[in-house]
């Protein structure tokens, strides 16, 4: 990843996927894996049969902040939690479809308001305690508790009303929704089921949000994922070990995961991650930038590089369309007159050379974008969305229609001026740690120079960039990217809705500022509760078209998911959804044991 594709405002910040925390005492880490017992209903995974044993080393761009799925908001925490926790129904990252997970089956009532989920029998947490419907009830009770401040809580509210659930027996849970929900069973993905036996007491004492520090003793933490906590060395690594009670087997009946250990190394920069991978210290790598990918592809090594195709990251340019307050500086108010002009934004969009962005920034490993839904998300793409080629003539024509004109500046170049004679100059902020986006900004700067606009590119540290965009609103334009965590449009709902916190050009509005934003709100809210895919798609297409028509976000390009793994890693099948290479971590294995032994 780029310094990675670093600074994408991961959707996960807002809708973290789930996971669970669990802590445990008890059962001093079973030395001998439990025998399969006939009452256990294990999930059999198809796929290549692998060797058991060995350790896989992966680099993380930062230290995870927590292992607690209730409070995790940063991407590294999610990446780790995903390997330690499990959900009721899971979205297969490769097929992008739902699959049974902890729930072996589910049923939706005809009115779409009730879901009945049946848990697998005989499942145990990683500390050996068994799972039943009470854990599920407890889990959702905690997620819904306002005092816990779980970042994903909003997803359980429908027009402000929470879902409710009850158990009918120790394996069956009924979820009651206030309204039908178009996402259907996908909504169960990502809610880590928490171990009640460990967390109930801290929860009652109001201490649950303090649990899950990385330094937690391994026997005080448990989950239902393939790995469990083993060791944490601050600033260096986090070591997970195989969960002997994991509930999946391969086709031959051996219990997964194959690996004995999963090690996360903390390697802050993308370049350093490449070096570690090249030197063999890490076994897999993902979130690679195109340039590093081609460096690795070019230099022969004991690894395979794989372009998994277009992902779900969309990069875009947007202007500051926030309502001016008394704190807004006069210059910004003045420039906002241009930014609010639809033709101005359209002209900017028409002048941007998206093909050049794909070629120069992604070395061709990406796709130009005209809408928020990337080509990696085939199901939701709007085929009717136009893909006009770059046209400076059209851009110049649009500016003229909007009352702009041109004069000759002191340096002999032609300069765009507005109807009041003010030269069109503004700044464009971008994250200093993301080389890809800085490059896009430089290309856009040059494109807009052709229109006579003078643009200053200002690289900012990511946090101060976010602060300007969402808090102080002191900026003109910004180049940013977002990675959707799922193909379903609802993960991006806060971008679409005018009341959403990542409705970037004018976030968290009390009332939609424009009629088209109101219309988008209506479409998006409506699709949320529509019953069939076709109904949702029609509504969502219309929203995409409106977004294109008014261009509050000018979409640029979407990179391919670029990954690599040592040749010895079996079942390496990267997906275009996060976590690109670790989504099937229980099936990853090391083919050559001799190699491992020497490490």
């Amino acid at each position, binding site marked *: 990843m780029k310094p990675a594709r670093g600074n994408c405002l991961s959707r996960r910040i807002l809708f973290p996927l789930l996971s669970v925390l669990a802590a445990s005492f008890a059962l001093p880490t079973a030395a001998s894996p439990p025998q399969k017992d006939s009452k256990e209903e294990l999930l059999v995974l198809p796929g290549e049969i692998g060797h058991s044993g060995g350790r896989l080393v992966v680099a993380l761009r930062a230290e995870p902040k927590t292992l607690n799925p209730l409070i995790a908001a940063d991407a590294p925490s999610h990446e780790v939690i995903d390997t330690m926790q499990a959900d009721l129904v899971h979205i297969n990252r490769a097929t992008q479809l739902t699959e049974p997970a902890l729930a072996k089956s589910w049923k939706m009532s005809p009115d779409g308001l009730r879901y009945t989920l049946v848990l697998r029998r005989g499942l145990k947490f990683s500390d050996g305690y068994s799972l039943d419907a009470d854990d599920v009830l407890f889990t959702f009770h905690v997620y819904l508790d306002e005092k816990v401040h779980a970042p994903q809580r909003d997803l359980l509210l429908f027009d402000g009303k929470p879902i409710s659930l009850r158990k009918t027996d120790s394996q069956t849970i009924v979820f009651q929704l206030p309204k039908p929900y178009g996402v259907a069973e996908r909504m169960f993905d990502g809610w880590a089921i928490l171990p009640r036996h460990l967390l109930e007491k801290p929860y009652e004492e109001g201490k649950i949000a303090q649990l899950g520090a990385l330094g937690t003793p391994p026997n005080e933490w448990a989950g239902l994922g393939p790995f469990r906590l083993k060791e944490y060395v601050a600033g260096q690594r986090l070591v997970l070990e195989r969960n002997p009670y994991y509930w999946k087997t391969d086709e031959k009946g051996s219990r997964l995961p194959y690996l004995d250990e999963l090690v996360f190394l903390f390697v802050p920069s993308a*370049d350093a991650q*490449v*070096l570690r991978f090249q030197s063999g210290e890490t076994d897999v790598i993902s979130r690679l*930038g195109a*340039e*590093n990918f*081609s*460096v690795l592809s*070019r*230099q022969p090594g004991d690894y395979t590089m794989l372009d998994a195709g277009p992902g779900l990251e969309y990069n875009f340019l947007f202007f500051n369309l926030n309502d001016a307050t008394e704190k807004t500086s006069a210059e910004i108010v003045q420039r906002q007159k241009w930014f609010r002009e639809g033709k101005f934004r359209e002209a900017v969009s028409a002048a941007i*050379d998206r093909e*050049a962005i794909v*070629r*120069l920034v992604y*070395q*061709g490993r990406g796709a130009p974008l005209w809408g928020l839904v990337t080509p990696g998300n085939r199901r939701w793409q709007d085929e009717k969305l136009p893909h006009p080629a770059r046209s400076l003539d059209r851009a110049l024509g649009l500016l003229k229609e909007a009352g702009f004109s041109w004069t000759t500046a002191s340096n*002999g170049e032609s300069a765009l001026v507005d109807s009041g004679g003010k030269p069109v100059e*503004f*700044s464009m*902020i971008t994250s*200093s740690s993301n*080389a890809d986006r800085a*490059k896009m900004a*430089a*290309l856009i*700067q*040059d494109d807009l120079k052709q229109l006579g606009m003078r643009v*200053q*590119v*200002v*690289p900012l540290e990511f946090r*101060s960039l976010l602060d*300007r965009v969402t808090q102080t609103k*002191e*900026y*003109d334009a910004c180049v940013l990217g977002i990675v959707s965590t799922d193909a379903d449009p609802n993960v991006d709902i806060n971008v679409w809705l005018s009341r959403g916190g990542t409705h970037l050009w004018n976030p968290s509005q009390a009332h939609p500022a424009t009629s088209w934003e109101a219309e988008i709100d209506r479409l998006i809210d409506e699709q949320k509760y529509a019953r069939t895919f076709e109904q949702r798609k029609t509504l969502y297409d219309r929203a995409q078209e409106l977004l294109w028509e008014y261009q509050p976000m000018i979409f640029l390009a979407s990179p391919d998911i670029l990954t690599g793994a040592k040749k010895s890693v079996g079942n390496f099948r990267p997906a275009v959804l996060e976590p690109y290479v670790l989504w099937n971590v229980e099936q990853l294995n090391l083919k050559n044991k001799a190699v491992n032994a020497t490490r």
Partner: protein
Amino acid sequence: MTGRRAISWWLLLLVGLHALVLFAGFFAPYDPTEQDRRSPYLPPMRLHFVDNQGHFHARPFAFALKLREASFDQYEEDRTRALPLKFMVRGANYRWLGLLPSRLHLFGAESEKIYLLGSDAYGRDQLSRFVYGGRVSLFAGLLGAGVTVLLGLCVGAAAGYYGGWRDDLLMRLAELFLALPWLYLLFALRAFLPLAVSPLEAFLLIIAVLGAVGWARPARLVRGVVLSAKERDFVRAARGFGATDGYLLRRHILPATSSVLLTQAAILVPQFILAEMTLSFLGLGVPEPVPSWGNLLSSLQQYSVLVSYWWMYLPALIMLPFFLGYLGLASELQERTEAYKIGN
């Protein structure tokens, strides 16, 4: 007087190099900000004298480069397209010394662009960027050194000549400045500045920062020279005849510091060029797309560039004669000062 001749040689070298940068518009074949999006990371073109048929040409030529099959950044020579090097060609607009508009360039090629130092990520000519970039870097160095030396002279002379509490105060202040972690201060300073800093403002800021942080060392040196000079017999004699402080400083004391100051200036210029490069390298200098030497090198922060495109290092190599020129001059000046001291 070999010393004097050596100084002249160094000066001549420096004047030549600075003329190159001063008349960047003429010497650079292209506009340094012009992107050629079909040619990112083009390696330097080689100049040939012998064509495919083995014929010799007095006029050097290069072959156009084409992408290798299925590659984004691997080029090879297209032997069918020769680009003869032309001199005194017409090309991009520029102004002589920022005044006279012109389109005349020392060299170029017809029909296609010729890249003698290769191109960068956006297909901009590295040679043109280097020559133009020198404007920012060299003049930041020169002006920064000028400001520093002037400040150092004033502070050092005041401290040395008046002595007492003034001396203590100024010298403690100097020590404080020597000890400041100014790079971090600069980061902090940048955070308080308005979001968009125009290239000119950024340039002035750099000069101000360089001058403000660098004066302490020359000030201490000057103070030392002044301390010894004011006790000289002829100075005492002049004072005895009723000369004023201003007269003494101007006529007798400050001239004694001149060789120290010149040597200091010659050492400081390359130091300040480096400082400007550090700032631009870290993104605190002049903003892109304006070229500066630090900006030119900043792409080397990326590992992929470091291992893939060797010509991105070339600017660093070409800077060497500039540094060498200044340091050579400084060392000759230093020797002359020593000789002068011994002569006394």
